[in-house]
């Protein structure tokens, strides 16, 4: 069996190893097979030299968080994201990865009513203490009022799990956008899911179907704002995923909510009495979600957005190393995810912050389960504006 990776993209790696320290799985295991250089060498062994897909090779390729920290670290411009995406699809097609329960779980994401029903059961179970805390789920609301459209300047992409579990973050994002003078249309059930997790799990057909649905449901040229870095990265990648001009045009309309707000800070601050923000009395550490920093490469605006609204911002001194959440990674690879998180928490502790701001709900949940108080930057801004 081959993985069918583009040979030119596969040839681009010179095996220099400069990516090693930027790879969370290498950092915690020290195994070459759990490193970008090693994974690429194994892909080559399979595709170029006909090596059999041994369980060890599958495990190495399956252990990748797809954080793409290796991509921003690589001086040779290797498109690791493309390599692993193709690999994951080939492995899932051959049923070497992504077992039935994972497929079933992912399928539910595309069905909002099913997801909400499941979430209600989960929320009930939480109330009765039946859900172990170490799974790291946030307290899921038993019921949450639907979001209301306030105008048609921008879409706010609401997605799947996040809408079911953390709708308040959307509410805070919407409040901030409104304060900055924008009328907001939440996308709601029209676009059930971005397909990011399906794509990570190698379910390419499902991911492409969801992408086509999103594009059909959100025509026109209104900006599409996203408050989950993972979803934003997926939506921005539709152009590559589908390869059509329509998909590329769609992707060009997608922005992380912090990117968009950063461009309108004067409106946001100007809306306040005397144009004077009242900063929250907090020292806030900025955690850059990988899909914001390494994939969208848009991690700087969040600093601009937060700065006027908190007492102090601090950076983590780890070059944006992954926290181990990785979409559904912390569910399918709990052991590696936990070790990666421990490392991250070390850096967070050194930053001596009151709270961590993360623009990706998955990271927030994962860090929260590790005992780190984590909030979405929009929640902080909404609080400082008195709107949360």
């Amino acid at each position: 069996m081959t993985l069918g990776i583009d040979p030119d993209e596969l040839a681009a790696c010179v095996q220099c190893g400069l990516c090693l320290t930027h790879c969370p799985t290498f950092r915690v295991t020290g195994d070459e097979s759990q490193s970008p250089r090693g994974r690429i060498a194994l892909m080559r062994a399979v595709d170029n030299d006909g090596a059999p897909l041994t369980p060890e090779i599958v495990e190495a390729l399956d252990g990748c968080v797809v954080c793409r920290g290796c991509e921003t670290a690589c001086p040779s411009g290797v498109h690791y994201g493309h390599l692993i995406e193709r690999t994951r699809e080939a492995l899932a097609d051959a049923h070497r990865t992504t077992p039935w329960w994972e497929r079933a779980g992912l399928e539910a994401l595309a069905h909002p009513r099913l997801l909400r029903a499941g979430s209600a059961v989960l929320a009930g179970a939480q109330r009765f203490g039946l859900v172990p805390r170490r799974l790291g789920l946030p307290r899921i609301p038993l019921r949450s009022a639907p979001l209301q459209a306030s105008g048609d300047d921008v879409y706010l992409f609401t997605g799947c799990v996040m809408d079911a579990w953390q709708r308040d973050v959307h509410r805070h994002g919407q409040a901030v956008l409104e304060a900055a003078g924008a009328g907001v249309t939440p996308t709601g059930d029209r676009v059930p899911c971005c397909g990011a997790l399906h794509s990570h799990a190698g379910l390419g057909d499902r991911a492409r179907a969801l992408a086509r649905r999103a594009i059909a449901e959100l025509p026109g040229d209104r900006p599409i704002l996203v408050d989950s870095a993972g979803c934003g990265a997926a939506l921005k990648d539709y152009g590559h995923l589908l390869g059509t001009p329509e998909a590329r045009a769609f992707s060009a309309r997608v922005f992380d909510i912090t990117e968009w707000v950063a461009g309108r800070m004067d409106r946001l601050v100007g809306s306040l009495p005397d144009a004077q923000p009242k900063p929250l009395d907090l020292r806030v550490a900025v955690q850059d979600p990988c899909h914001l920093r390494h994939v969208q490469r848009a991690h700087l605006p969040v600093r601009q957005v937060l700065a006027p609204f908190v007492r102090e911002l601090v950076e983590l001194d780890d070059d944006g190393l992954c926290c181990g959440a990785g979409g559904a990674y912390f569910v399918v690879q709990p052991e590696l995810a936990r070790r990666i998180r421990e490392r991250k928490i070390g850096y967070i502790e050194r930053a001596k912050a009151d709270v961590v701001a993360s623009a990706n709900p998955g990271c927030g949940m994962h860090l929260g389960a590790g005992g780190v108080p984590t909030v979405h930057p929009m929640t902080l801004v909404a609080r400082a504006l008195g709107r949360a």
Partner: protein
Amino acid sequence: MGVLRGAFGRRRSQPVLPQDPVVAELVDALAPDRVRMDSAERALFAHDASVFTGGVSGPVCFVTSAAEVQAVMRIAIRHDRAIVPRGAGTGLAGGAIPLGAPIVVSTIKMNRVLEVDTVDRVAWVEPGVVNLDLTRYLRPLGYHFAPDPSSQQACTIGGNVANNSGGPHCLAYGVTSNHVVAIDVVLPSGELVTLGGVDAEPDGYDLRGAFVGGEGTLGIATRIGVRITPNPPVVRTMLVSFDSAEVAASMVGDVIAAGIVPAAMEMMDREITRAVENFVHAGYPLDAGAVLLVEVDGQDEGTRLDMERITEIAHADGARSCRLAADEEERALLWKGRKGAFGAVAQIAPAYYLHDTVVPRAALADVLRAVYEIGARHDLPVVNVFHAGDGNLHPLLLFDPREPGIMERVHEAGKDIVEVSLAAGGTLSGEHGIGVEKRDYMSMMFSDVDLEHQNRLRRAFDPACRANPGKVLPASHSCADIQALRQVPTGVWA
């Protein structure tokens, strides 16, 4: 909950224990998850960042303490097996490539900074600490580790010590050897000894100095005392452009002759400057024959005067332009260009062979010209980016590894570059080491008598040729029955 954990979460494959008694003993001495013997992992540990193939790895051990290294060494002795220390595997001379299925000892998990003493200005570190991690750790204290190889984001201090690595800032500060005061070493006999010490002049022979640059053939470093260097108060960086590499080379000589030792003096030739500019947009001149990046550091007034003097020399030598970075941002941008150089060549060809020789500064221009001719003769594009201040050439030969027969041509060209460098009075390697890459060229540089003395030093540490056999010294001289090392001992690893 056990059920849940079993159902959700990938099953991890259980390592199968082959019958090799070495493996069972290693597992006993370390831990099951710190000894890897599956074919995938061993295939990966058969390589480093070099273009050399032919390595065969035995079991791979991830050690966490000197005691564990000793235990592994004793097991190796008992079973008469060789060992190869390995850091991050970013070496370019094939130093960490295992020959003949030795036990590979990875230090990557020995990654703690043990102690920082700002009075003596020494930091004690484990060998697997990543170079840049150490500098980052020291930053809040106002210090850094001066050797800064271009691979510093990934390479380990243990690897730096073994290869006596250098970097752009070693012009003024010196290479790794100048920054190592003491080393704990597990000798090939299994003994743990300390070489060197914190005193300025430890008694007896400088065995620390002998160990640095030993490329893993003298034992395994398990704890290293390194000098830490205070961060300079002021740093000034200037980009000077020239019509030709020859003019640039003569300016390098003139600056040093004027008694100025800049912190760094890096040269890039026409082709690499273009590639870099397209890649990072740092404002490098596209039409220059060569550019020099010159940096001075120290006190405000001193660095200002140095830069004035350097600018005068540049103009007198016929430089086309001098651009002094106005602020930290511009300075970072200029360095980004230099540091992005290896990546930038990806626009020209998918792979490169990064060569490393040293020539006297006076011969720089001539050797550069010869290097271009060698590239043309073998039909290989060649670009140059290097530490001009100390005459350390780094020609990059560019190629597509998928082209049949290409590696022979690359190695031929590499050999020709060694020959012209030596003919000009230079040396085999500036900082990447000898490894397997230049092992067989050693006789071009050293007489049989020289090599025999080096062999005696090696044997004094390692009489049984246990540590990293097949490296550094050529076959006729030591521990390198190359034929035998290509084969795997019977009953062991295939």
